[in-house]
């Protein structure tokens, strides 16, 4: 037994460090991939954890989670999943507690004593682990189906003869548009290439191969294209707690221009990208990642490289007032409603991991 446990523990450690490595080297295959891998790891962590009450479990998960998050502090998705799992633990605990105290407390009073209920999460419940794992597995299934659910909503938001503008490569938006095309809706898409990462090229290729009328443009032409466009549909890396977006670079300038020309900006994003963090200014250290100057200036321009500061941020902050709505796997929401979702998904005490 101890040997078996030791093996499992080592195996888990290995998995965690493999994942951490992947993240550090940005070897991941998109947000969904990161989310699913994180949740898989957390399921293992929980199942192998030894704890006597919910409080210990919370601490354990938090510690392990922080270790994973430390691989890349700007990768919000990891933190989001960890916090959701923590919230699940808290909720399961509460359910169990309420069941236990059912006869003693009347419904009305229970409502009014909402915050006092959990106390310090120290009552032991043997069935906690099983319930938590079950709930987390449900979350995992939800995660896996995110993109399909969003894509299914496409016909509601893409109309006949629409001209759509998008930027870079977002698997969600790609699925969204393909789903609309699948329903035989005829529309046109302008894809902005998303320099210096050029995700837009891949996106344009995929859309064109799906027989969608696609045109590839560069960012500098967004201003000239915008008057011709009906709506702007973009994906995002994260949604911040105030409804702002952390999206691929170029999204902000596109949103500003959309506002100037009064075009709607629709964001297609799964809810696991919703983060409870605020970033008051985009200058906060963990907000942005910068890529190598090599993307912009080749090593051939060595004479310049040494004297020039090359700024190549990977993300842009888009303030919430530039975004019209968010299409999520739970349906379409206004960006101002995001706070409610944050409250539902995350517990206030978990915001600071």
């Amino acid at each position: 037994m101890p040997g078996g446990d030791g093996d499992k523990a080592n195996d888990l450690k290995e998995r965690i460090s493999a994942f951490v490595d992947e993240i550090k080297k940005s070897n991941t295959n998109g947000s969904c991939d990161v989310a699913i891998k994180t949740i898989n790891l957390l399921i293992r962590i929980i199942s192998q954890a030894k704890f006597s009450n919910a409080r210990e479990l919370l601490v354990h998960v938090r510690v392990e989670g922080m270790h994973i998050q430390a691989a890349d502090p700007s990768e919000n998705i990891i933190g989001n999943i960890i916090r959701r799992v923590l919230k699940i633990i808290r909720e399961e605990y509460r359910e169990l507690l309420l069941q236990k105290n059912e006869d003693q407390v009347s419904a009305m009073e229970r409502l009014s004593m909402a915050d006092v209920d959990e106390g310090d999460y120290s009552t032991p419940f043997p069935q906690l682990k099983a319930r938590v794992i079950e709930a987390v597995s449900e979350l995992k299934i939800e995660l896996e189906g995110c993109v399909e659910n969003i894509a299914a909503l496409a016909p509601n938001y893409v109309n006949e003869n629409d001209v759509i503008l998008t930027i870079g490569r977002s698997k969600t938006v790609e699925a969204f548009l393909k789903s609309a095309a699948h329903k035989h809706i005829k529309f046109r898409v302008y894809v902005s290439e998303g320099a210096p990462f050029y995700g837009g090229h891949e996106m344009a290729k995929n859309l064109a191969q799906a027989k969608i009328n696609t045109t590839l443009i560069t960012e500098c032409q967004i201003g000239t294209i915008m008057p011709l466009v009906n709506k702007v549909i973009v994906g995002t890396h994260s949604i911040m707690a105030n409804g702002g977006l952390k999206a691929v670079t170029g999204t902000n300038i596109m949103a500003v221009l959309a506002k100037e020309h009064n075009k709607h900006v629709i964001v297609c994003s799964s809810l696991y990208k919703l983060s409870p963090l605020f970033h008051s200014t985009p200058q906060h250290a963990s907000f942005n990642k910068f890529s190598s100057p090599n993307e912009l200036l080749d090593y051939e321009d060595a004479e310049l490289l040494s004297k020039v500061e090359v700024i190549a941020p990977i993300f842009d902050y888009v303030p919430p007032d530039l975004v019209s709505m968010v299409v999520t796997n739970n349906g379409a929401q206004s960006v101002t409603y995001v706070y409610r979702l944050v409250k539902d998904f995350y517990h206030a005490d978990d915001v600071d991991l």
Partner: protein
Amino acid sequence: MDNDGVLSHFKEQLREDPEMSAAVAAIKTLVKLIETSRAGTLSELRDNIKNATEVMLTGEYSYASVSSGCEQFLRNVSLANLDRNFKTVMLERANIFLKEILKARSKTVQMATRFIDDGATILTHCRSRVVMQVLKAAAKENKRFTVYVTESNPDQSGYGAQEELTKHGIPTTVILDAAVGYIMERVQLVMLGAEGVVESGGIINKIGTYPIAITAKSMNKPVYVVAESFKFVRAFPLNQKDVPDHFKYPQSTLRAQKDLSKEHPLVDYTPPEYIDLMFTDQGVLTPSAVSDELIKLYC
């Protein structure tokens, strides 16, 4: 406790601790009222509380926060299904509520300091106790920032604010109320207190707040409001005219039945579209979240 007793206790609370919000003092007074009450039935006690509230509102203190605080207190306290022992239960609840309220300000302050960056330039209006605490707390965290505060006529409380902040080592400059447009391009963010937060998500605050918010918005500067949740009011003004008179004019003016069209209002209403975020003890809220919270608090 009779009416005079209520009023004197109320004023005494404020005298003892000038940092205390008027609403907190009012609630403390109401707690004392319940303690010393000799009411026989629940409804009698409720009436006593209501009367006491009326009395305290005649004082020259912020009508909005006192009235909202007291109303929330009443709601909270009388939610219970009571028969006998109602006094003890109510007292228990009252004390819990008071405890929460006292913690409220520090929770709020904690939220707000996160949004002040090193090297920030902040504009604030009049001398809001909460904002002062936020700024002092941020300074204690070794953040360096400068503050511009408006004179805030007619009571010139801006100078008091400057004095207070300078004592804590925060470089503060007083500007004319009319210089807000001029200074706005240098400012990084605007931080305001509120006397009341209304259902639309907007705020009622010292006169002069509205033009500051408009200027900030037109120049794309964020506007943050710091307000504890006991300031949430059940009111929905549609425009400046729609703000109830008892918020706008001091009680003495109303009692004297002066011609209101010739009086200067003390507060104005800032609609939610000019506010970016609100820091409350319930968390950091967008203005649209406010009505959600209000429903929770009042229903």
